[in-house]
């Protein structure tokens, strides 16, 4: 579509640019991970898990819905996995499936009324839904309430010849999983389904007028997003071997949203870069600055005011401008030919 309308002079497309940024970042992360010490491995795993979570949020944002309660899915996945593995003593693999299925089912149930709203209303409703889950596990005697519950195992991968108990193997596994999910979501975004989501984001009224079933597409995006978010939560519970209500808290919903906004919403790879920055930034601030929440808040304010499109969003906007300049330069020539 674009090549026909913009003539033959063309810099790389937005998708190509996103993929290049993604592959470069993956390579850099792989090199950094290989040469990192044991402590940094924990941060790498943290960043990769938050990245998977950010991908789930950003995929939902494709349909024009931005959730401020995504930690509800994260917590649900963690508690489903932990509950299955610790309380029911099921094998970890089935706990994993249970977590993902739980996320999808919760996505369908909750989504069936929340995706009727949009915009800031959706932000408020999702926040409230997640807080409901938070207050449930906070008081639940089954999961030891506010104190949380330990003893959550990691997946048994000895049949594949490696063990996730080793920190650097675990970190690498999380990175690979994050990379695969990113590629899959890029593919889905390029598919007809992803195109419809794009159209819904740009103008849901027009899609509805053309006969598109906006509600079902959004519901599907919400459910898929819930499944991936729950997967991220289940991985987090394995990483720390611990369940706590914090996994479903308002702060985590804020963190992941902020990671996506810092990276650039709607860019997928931006969420990964934002998550990585946020994890390492928090670590650096909390170990060097006394009242580091103030610093973190100040950084959020600065990003909101100075870089509202986020890092990758700003890069893509520069490409957009360059392309527009090229198109503008090409246009008079085209018109001359016609006359």
């Amino acid at each position, binding site marked *: 579509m674009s090549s026909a309308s913009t003539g033959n002079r063309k810099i790389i497309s937005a998708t190509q640019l996103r993929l290049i940024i993604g592959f470069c970042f993956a390579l850099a992360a792989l090199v950094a991970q290989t040469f990192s010490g044991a402590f940094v491995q924990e941060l790498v795993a943290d960043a990769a898990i938050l990245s998977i979570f950010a991908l789930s949020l950003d995929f939902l944002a494709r349909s024009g819905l931005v959730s401020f309660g995504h930690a509800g899915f994260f917590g649900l996945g963690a508690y489903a996995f932990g509950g299955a593995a610790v309380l029911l003593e099921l094998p970890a693999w089935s706990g994993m499936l249970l977590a993902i299925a739980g996320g999808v089912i919760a996505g369908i149930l909750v989504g069936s009324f929340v995706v009727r709203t949009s915009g800031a209303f959706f932000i408020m409703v999702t926040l409230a839904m997640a807080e409901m889950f938070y207050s449930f596990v906070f008081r639940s005697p089954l999961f030891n309430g506010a104190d949380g519950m330990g003893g959550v195992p990691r997946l048994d991968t000895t049949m594949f010849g490696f063990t996730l108990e080793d920190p650097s193997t675990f970190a690498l596994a999380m990175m690979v999983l994050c990379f695969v999910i990113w590629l899959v979501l890029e593919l889905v975004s390029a598919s007809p389904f992803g195109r419809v989501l794009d159209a819904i984001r740009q103008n849901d009224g027009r899609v509805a007028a053309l006969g598109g079933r906006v509600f079902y597409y959004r519901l599907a995006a919400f459910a898929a997003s819930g499944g991936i978010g729950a997967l991220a939560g289940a991985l987090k519970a394995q990483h720390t071997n611990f369940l706590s209500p914090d996994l479903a808290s308002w702060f985590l919903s804020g963190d992941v949203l902020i990671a996506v906004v810092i990276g650039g919403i709607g860019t997928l790879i931006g969420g990964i870069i934002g998550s990585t920055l946020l994890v390492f930034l928090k670590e650096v601030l909390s170990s060097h600055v006394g009242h580091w929440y103030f610093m973190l808040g100040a*950084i959020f304010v600065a990003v909101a005011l100075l870089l509202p499109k986020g890092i990758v969003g700003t890069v893509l906007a520069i490409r957009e401008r360059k392309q527009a300049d090229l198109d503008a330069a090409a246009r008079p020539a085209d018109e001359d030919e016609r006359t």
Partner: protein
Amino acid sequence: MITDPQFLAEQILNSLQFAMLLFLLAIGLSVIFGLMDYLNLAHGTVYMTSAYLAYSIAQIGGSFWLSLIFAPIAATALGMTVYFLLLKRAEGADHLVQVLLTVGIIYAGTDILRLIYGDLPKGLSQPDILKGPVTLFGFAYPAYRLFIIGLGLAIMVALYFLLERTKLGALVRAGVDDRETTETMGVNIGAVFTLVFTIGTYLAGVAGVVAAPIFGVYPGMDVSIIILVLIVIVVGGLGSLKGAILGSLLIGFADTFGKILLPQLAMVIIYAVMAIVLVARPTGLLPARRFAGR
């Protein structure tokens, strides 16, 4: 116990009292959003700041009444400074940018208050004249809680006259319903918005002071109430006084009676109310006209 008329009456009054607090916060947030599409999550930070300022005034020997007069004014002054320095720059920006900005302000504001006051909860004592119970319809009820209900009702009536019977109110309602047209008629919506923002911030400050003797003053008190306030707005509908009143009453009652009937699942009742309202009316019960169609 729920059938005991005295207990029931007490709980109804408790619900009303909580509803009034929610209302004081919800009305500002709702009209700020209605007028400028501004999602100001830091609204609760004003509430918390005002409560801490009231505590400070009490510490240096001021009475509750001095706190009630000066703490909201000081909190409003701080709030408006932040508004002009930071919030104003994100007017018309994406809601997400506003979320990022206001969450940043919540983090930074909470940390500043923790730096000054520490992490431990503080208390504010009730005014002497309102200490102890009063006898009402043959049973005793805390005078202070009755005072909150009275104050809330008075502010509701005042806001009703301000919004429905004055020129400023007409401009606000017109601005909420159709901002472009109102501007085309020569109204400076920016100035109206600044005024609305000031009043909303002031009311949040008042809520902080009157809530302090009941709930205490602690870091994080802003977030715990703002989530309920957001639900109030979702249930009541955006941008309207009636919506904020109805939403506050529903959530005030749902919260109080939820805690009695199902102590384990108190919050669940509130969310059930919200879910039912959203299925029936996705834009809330009584939104301003502009938000009704979505």
